[in-house]
């Protein structure tokens, strides 16, 4: 799987949504992505890439796009 595929899968698995829904996602734009959903998403992403994010980055992880930017800090490039 490519990084992008892994990244998308973390969203689709955590929120039980289809792939075509993920790119426009923002925190709290769907009911599943609330504060509880957020922690499951973070856990899924961390597992997928074998990383551990800092608390500040978890807080800043506010959209599908923003997440890509944050993951660069952990040497995870999503293209």
């Amino acid at each position, binding site marked *: 799987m490519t990084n992008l595929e892994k990244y998308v899968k973390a969203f689709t698995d955590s929120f039980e949504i289809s792939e075509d829904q993920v790119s426009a996602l923002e*925190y709290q734009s769907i009911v599943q992505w609330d*504060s509880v959903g957020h*922690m499951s998403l973070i856990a899924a992403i961390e597992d997928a890439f074998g990383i*551990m994010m800092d608390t500040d980055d978890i*807080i800043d992880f506010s959209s599908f796009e923003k997440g890509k930017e944050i993951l660069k800090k952990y040497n995870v490039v999503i293209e």
Partner: protein
Amino acid sequence: MVNYEEILNMPPYSLDKSKKHEFLTEQLSILTRHHYYNCPEYRKIIDAFGFDVNCIKSYCDIPFLPVRLFKEYDLLSVPREDVVKTMTSSGTTGQKVSKIYLDKETSSNQTKTLVKIVSSYIGAKRLPMIVIDTSAVLKDRNMFSARGAGILGFSVFARDRIFALDENMELDIDGLVQFLRKYEGEDILLFGFTYMIWQHFYNKLKELDLSLDLSRGVMIHGGGWKKLQEHAISPAGFKEALHHVCGINRVYDYYGMVEQTGTVYIECECGHLHSSVFSDVIIRRSSDFGIAETGEKGIIEVVSVLPKSYPGHVLLTEDEGIIIGEDDCSCGRKGKYFRITGRINNAEIRGCSDTYADRFK
């Protein structure tokens, strides 16, 4: 408007008395005007006081709302469709609960502030976390009780999390032992409500004569002392007892309320609750609501720069306390430090820990 991005970059205990006074007066004046123009009920109250929102000399002069008002009225300063989360206070059955309406911005600032304050105590590194509660409190995702919100808020500091109690509030000893084995030699974060920790963690370990090694543990607990005071357990006695059953050395109490989530007051190494730059406590005399002297007991008013989606930036609580000092605590943190002495007479029981304890009567 309040520039939260800039504000939240300030170190949490960095301003001395005069700088903090200037900062809070500026920010809380902006918020007072925001609520005045966006919340019709708030405007009525302020007008009834004859208070001029355009001429605020000190944040101490801004009229406070009693926390009880959030039980009686739906108070919000944003359009209802912008509300993403409604928080409710803890309350025993039959009590009315407060409803606090959060939009995206306020909700996110609450989390950011909590992270700022707590990480200044425990560091930015995420830790394995033991929640001394049951996962059942998180079941209803749409209506967060204060208890669930506390657990969720602190979960951002966790990298792996277990709940120490099952849904019958029984301690999961096997789960705990396994978890501790997995993270042997590492710092571990423990979070829970004071009375539940006492009743279901401490008492159980004592009863079973079991000792766990939590010498690397950092415990953060809150939610009210009333029930433990009835059992004549002091904060020092609480720490000592816990140290005895699990070797834990770092136990911090916190004071906070659902009406001002995010701006918590955490106990320092010297045993004092501290106010961060994002909020403050003012002690009011019950006779005339004038400001009490340092060392004088009175009703606690809390102010916070976070509440923007609801007019909860200046509130009178139903707790009593004493300011111990300001800027000169030996832990080095700037700002006021204080302690809680109890609830005002006839106030409802409402800490997370106390409302829970009430069910055991």
